[in-house]
């Protein structure tokens, strides 16, 4: 690991941390436009995070240290994931420390900590949220792994930088297996990021919420970190999707700071399109009952498995 690689790694991580709330703001804005509402300002998520940092934290009297440590763990896991996902460049020194399977493990770590923190207070909604989150997760996680496995089989590597490097090299032919994987990945991303049709990020309607039920008790800096981590998660998933299915424009080979900054506008453009697509999906679909979620995610899982089988059958 050389110094310049390390610096470009840090640069990419910094860009991810900065851009993530913007993506959330953009998706919210697009959704408001599509639904004929007046849109909130694009930079609102930043202001919300700052406002939350300034507030005094209120922690329930029955909380254990688990409750207070969890937001930091979740944030750290998501930040590390942002360092591993090749969003701007494929030359990532950290990328070797954790491959695609470890990335899924990191997401699971964040999920488990958030669920445990939600159960910590012993409130009815907290435990309900934890149960539902784990319920969605136990199908979403295998489905995500199947998608990543399909891509790994194509490139013969589970290292995300290598996968993306391989996929970026190809001429624009469509891999049949990746088509299945792409659909599966979209479904998983919706579920994992608490989006309609599985969850609704804009609701606090008690009986339908999943993610929001878990973080109900958080306030101030803890909530800010969780919101930021959720934004990072959306950013990470978007970047995984873009890197796997639309890898053009990414800085390949040994990238210096200039190459990374050069790749940034392309990424922003792609994220803008992706965010628009997400807002469109959210506008066009209705929230499902919680017990329809297994069908939805089971479909994603089977599509992922199908992608792997197609890959083995056709060799592409």
């Amino acid at each position, binding site marked *: 690991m050389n110094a310049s690689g390390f610096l470009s790694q840090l640069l990419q991580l910094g860009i991810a941390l900065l851009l993530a709330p913007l993506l959330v703001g953009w998706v919210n804005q697009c959704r408001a436009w599509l639904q004929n509402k007046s849109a909130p300002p694009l930079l609102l998520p930043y202001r919300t995070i700052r406002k939350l940092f300034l507030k005094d934290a209120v922690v329930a*009297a029955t909380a254990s240290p688990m409750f207070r440590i969890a937001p930091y763990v979740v944030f*750290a896991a998501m930040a590390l994931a942002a360092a591993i996902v090749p969003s701007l460049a494929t030359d990532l020194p950290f990328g070797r*420390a954790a491959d695609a399977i*470890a990335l899924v493990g990191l997401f699971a770590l964040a999920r488990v900590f958030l*669920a445990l923190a939600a*159960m910590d207070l*012993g409130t009815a*909604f907290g435990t309900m949220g934890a149960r539902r989150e784990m*319920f969605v997760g136990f199908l979403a996680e295998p489905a995500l792994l199947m998608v990543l496995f399909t891509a790994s089989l194509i490139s013969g590597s589970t290292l995300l930088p*290598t996968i993306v490097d391989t996929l970026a090299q190809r001429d624009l032919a469509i891999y049949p297996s990746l088509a299945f994987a792409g659909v599966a990945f979209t479904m998983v991303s919706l579920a994992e990021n608490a989006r309609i049709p599985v969850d609704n990020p804009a609701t606090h309607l008690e009986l339908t919420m999943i993610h929001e039920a878990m973080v109900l008790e958080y306030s101030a800096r803890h909530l800010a970190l969780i919101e930021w981590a959720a934004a990072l998660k959306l950013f990470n998933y978007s970047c995984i999707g873009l890197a796997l299915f639309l890898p053009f424009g990414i800085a390949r080979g040994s990238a210096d700071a200039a190459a990374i900054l050069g790749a940034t506008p392309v990424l922003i453009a792609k994220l803008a399109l992706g965010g628009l697509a997400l807002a469109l999906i959210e506008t066009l679909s209705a929230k499902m009952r919680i017990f329809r979620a297994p069908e939805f995610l089971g479909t994603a899982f089977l599509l992922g498995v199908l992608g792997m089988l197609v890959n083995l059958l056709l060799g592409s």
Partner: protein
Amino acid sequence: MARPRNLFYVGRVLFSAGALVGLLLAAVALVGMNQVPHTAVLPLGLPDLPFHLRLDALSAFFLLLLGAAAAGISIFSAGYFRASDGAAPGLLCLQYHTFLAAMAFVLIADDAFVFMIAWETMALASFFLVTTDHRLPEIRRAGFLYLLIAHIGALSILLCFGVLQGGNGDYTFGSMRSASLRGAWPSIAFLLALAGFGAKAGLLPLHVWLPEAHPAAPSPVSALMSGVMLKTAIYGLLRVTFDLLQGQLWWWGAIALVLGLVTALFGVLFATVQTDMKRLLAYSSIENIGIIVAGIGLAILFKTYGKTLLAAIALTAALYHSLNHAFFKSLLFLATGSVLHATKERSLGKLGGLIHRMPWVAWLALIGTLAIAGLPPLNGFVSEWLLLQAFLFTPSLPQSFINMLVPLAAAALVLAVALAAYVMVKFYGVVFLGRPREPNLAYARDAGRLERVALVWLAAGCVLLGLFPVQVIALLDAVNVLLIGATVYRPEAGWWLLAPIAADRASYSPAIVLVVTVVVLLLTIQVVHRLYHGRLRRGPAWDCGFPSQTSRMQDTAEGFGQPIRQIFEQFFRIERVLPTPFDAEPRYYVKAEDHFWYWLYLPIARAVDWAARRVGAIQQGRISIYLMYSFLTLLALLYFVG
């Protein structure tokens, strides 16, 4: 006779001595891993049949597992057993150490006689330990079931050795290695071994004793049985399949793979709906054994097709998972023991909030929970990572059927692993987090000093095995060389980077993951506190503004498992009593049972019962009838002789 109180102190000294012996065993095994096999012949046993012992890499690895895990469990036992716990402490101590010694002898046995003697001693000693509280009828029942299945398994193993000796009458393992079995005999030997050792390990459908025996036994015994004894069965399976049998067939691997994965999925599904914490852990053991056997199956599959590197990776994953399971499952069983002593309660529905009252146990159990859920950077993740790598880099095997099987198997494996996380969140959240569900939990006391030492030892094992996989694999390679003839350890990748195949194909570095996570975490805390502030107020929980929250509004264990029970309904036999709106005393009751009882065991029991009654018909109780039987027998014999 000494008074029980003295015996208690003797127990404390003896258990500590046992822990030291465990450490010594582990040290010996560590040295023995990379040396040429040592053999010894003890002049014990029947005339002309001395005991043959041998320590090779495979034995040494499992001895290391035994010693390291048993050291922790023995220290815990030294602080755990009280005079009021059922059997007399002296007797308990004797049974416990007999059990340990028998397991050690199983691992170093070099002929079938020693193996079977040690195996049976192990089964009997553990039977007496399981039935420590033999005054309770359900514990006697659990003990009987355990004994029965242990003997079905032992019978199968005995037959397996009978096949393996190949007709030359020499039951040493050395001669079995050189015996050339023809035709279907190797396959028969393998299937007998799979059934026999599977019964001990808890493979489907012989798993039914596990969820009965583990809750019945005292917690250190559960830890020993689940953490170590199940691994002796894995050892036996490996010994027979890879060492005593020369050459394997591909379909053995396919059978083991499918059986292992079905067991894993079955175990974890049942773990989600359990309401007794030790039963939950017992089902989780079934799941982990399934994963290990799936790894062994994959190793057989790859080996028969000459992919030795992948076979070695799969085998490494299986061995690594065995070691991991010994640590985290022992840790969790011991933690349940502390909880049980502090609260007198095993039912998840009556626990909760213990992190406030028992911080040591709770935080150490958290490490075990995260490890068993397969989360980086702890040890459970490493073995699952290795196994998934082995699945993923299945290059085109010659049979397309197998090629199709492998991704499906990988899918089943990740499903089991993801469900394990669900189970562990349920276990930890319900026991340690939330608010106490019963008022008496407010008086729970944390574990004693010796118990803490034991828990710290096992938790440290989970962390270190997770952080230094390269070093562990370097150690495991001796077994790979012995059984597969390939190595996984790649020194050129560096001490911190696990890259078993090639550096550009897959790599994982738990140390870096941990360091970066911790650095980011500390930086975030510092930045947030410096840049803004760290002010904190305490208040009541908000919970959407609902007033009068009680601790009974939290999810119970049933509630947490309910979604899984609902979507996998057909896998359970569900008995449910729902109250009607007009009940004066509404009661809700749900029980999820195993179909195997009704599909397999009860019919067999009925058939045995029926046959016994038919045989009973010849028992007339009149002496003339019996004389006639003797006469007829004599006639028949005369006919055959003449």
